[in-house]
């Protein structure tokens, strides 16, 4: 079964009702005077579910910080005003994509969400803002994980005082 077919199946299986985002799509994303994003709790919850769908980390370790908090910090602080607007537009487009795919984010399986996303990314003329949003959430979710205490200590073996230096070890 190719991805397009999978999407079609998901749509059929989920019926005709639009579940998508609960209240989230009824709220307009706001901007603060300085151009930063102001997301309400429902948006933040939705963003968290997107991040979890892209990179499921629930239950992995308490030493991984909240991805939503990190994503919002990085988007608002380390992006240009144009990039922040692109992120917001892409967010709306993402919600629309889910809506069109009849996916309810709270209930949809992560694999269903990602199938829809990957299909959208493979469109002949994918939406630039949508791609930016998806890439940002994915990349920042990855960064949140790989720069976490959990990953740095368990995988990178980070120590504040590093192990003694050896210039040429056998591997």
């Amino acid at each position: 079964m190719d991805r397009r077919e999978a999407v079609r199946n998901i749509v059929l299986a989920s019926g005709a009702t639009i579940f998508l985002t609960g209240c989230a799509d009824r709220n307009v994303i706001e901007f603060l005077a300085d151009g930063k994003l102001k997301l309400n709790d429902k948006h933040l919850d939705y963003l968290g579910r997107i991040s979890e769908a892209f990179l499921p980390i629930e239950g992995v370790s308490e030493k991984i910080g909240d991805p939503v908090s990190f994503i919002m910090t990085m988007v608002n602080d380390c992006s240009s005003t144009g990039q922040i607007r692109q992120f917001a537009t892409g967010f709306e487009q993402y919600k629309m994509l889910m809506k069109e795919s009849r996916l309810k984010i709270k209930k949809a399986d992560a694999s269903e969400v990602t199938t829809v996303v990957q299909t959208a990314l493979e469109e002949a003329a994918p939406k630039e803002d949508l791609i930016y949003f998806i890439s940002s959430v994915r990349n920042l979710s990855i960064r949140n994980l790989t720069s976490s205490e959990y990953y740095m200590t368990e995988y990178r073996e980070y120590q504040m005082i590093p192990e003694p230096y050896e210039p040429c070890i056998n591997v």
Partner: protein
Amino acid sequence: MSNHFDAIVIGAGMSGGWSVKELCEQGLKTLLLERGPDVKHIRDYPTATKNPWEFQHRGEMPHKIQQENPSIARCYAYREDNAHFFVKDTEHAYIQDKPFDWIRGYQVGGKSLMWARQTQRWSDFDFEGPARDGFAVDWPIRYKDLAPWYSKVEKFVGIAGNRDGLDILPDGEFLPAWDLTCVHDHFKQVLKNHFPGRHMVFARCAHLSQPQEIHLQQGRGQCVSRTECERGCPIGGYFSAYSSTIPWAEKTGNLTLRPHSVVESILFNPDDGKARGVRVIDANSKEVIEYTANVIFVNAGAINTISILLNSRSEHFPDGLGNHNGLLGKYVAFHNYRAKINAICEDFGDRAVKGRIPTSGYVPRFRNVYRQETDFLRGYASGFGASRWKEGGEPTGFGETLRDSILGTKPEFKGPWRINSHMMGATIPKESNYVKLDDVQVDDWGMPLIKISMDYDENDEKMIQDFFIQFTEMYEKAGFTDITTRDTKQAAGLDIHEMGGVRMGHDPETSLLNQWNQLHSCKNVFVTDGACMTSTSTQNPSLTYMAIAARAADFAVQALKKDEI
């Protein structure tokens, strides 16, 4: 508190630290003026013991700050963990007559917290360069004049290095070096076998690989290679004015430190032809205060040193103190750091590095050393880095696929060694390169804005191309592949090695300082920071500034005793 001192030192950075250390140790009641706040060793290193995940932006600087401060944002060392030590472009404006990224550290200790800690001596190939090649003016000193002062500084600072026996890079007083990697050894051997006169050595650095008694007396301990040096090292594993010279001077009881002190000018007494003191503006209250002294050391950092002298106008010196010949602020120069080269080494795949070291390899200058062999003057040194790090899983797809690609396997050594070199080229001081004061615009303290004009020239462009050709050839011979060269086209300044403008020389008509760093025309004023440099050479200059400062301070003390200044 009396406003009279035996000596005043303007600027509490790398060279100023050495000036006060020497002056205080020899019994002079010394006032140390610093325009920025006090920063105390350990106490004022707020990020030193933070883990990487504790930084809100994981080291990245917020976009707004980068936009507002484009010059420092281009500096490799400006990061979330040490941004508080950098002067923001917005806080201290200057005028770029030509693009110049001015990297500054306005605090007690100056830039000695953020420096790269590279400490290579100069040789007579450097001091004799201008006379041999016919640029700038002849240095009034030679290596033998500075050698004992290099030794004195090195012993106190603590320099890790090898005695390599190279005439282009004189040996010093070294602590043990760290061993370099097998790839370094390989490259070293390739140079030895195929490129006579070219060497790859351990880059000497100001780190305590094996502390001696003098370092323990400073309260410093062994470097543990955290390589988070720019945050401040609570161990004192590397040298900084914060951990070393300034506390040492304080222990003598002869030091008075006054932070938040913007030096407006040096006051000249026409009756005896000497400087009598300095006029200071309190950075916070804007109160104007005068301090007097018998001798004044100017160590404000090359560009600020020039600006203070230019602003020290009097009837006798209408164009700035000591500027009897109109050369003050001219012949400024920098280092050409534009050229980079990278490659990979597929060999030694069964070897890797464990842990970290605070330095790398160093290729001393090999061009135009014994004879002029190219169509450009002087030459370049280069760093040589070879590293191999554990690579995690390549993030793939979405969902569980993505998670498993990251967490499924632990990072391991699977990629090749990454090789890199960066050029450190000499630039030729030119009269057309200058630092001036603006006639109209002033800063928040009423000081004229500084105007800077420095640029690359044809000599620099030829040098960059030669670096690419020579290093490509050496890399190929070493079997490195995927060789890529890159000209960053960066503006002057990012080397953070501004030099000249108050150059030393024999002749008062063509220079401003004599062989003891005294202003030719105002003998109790000494300039011993980067501004005194007659030429630039290729080596990182801080060690030479420190040696020059120590030498000049000793001379000043002896001259005061003999009532000669």
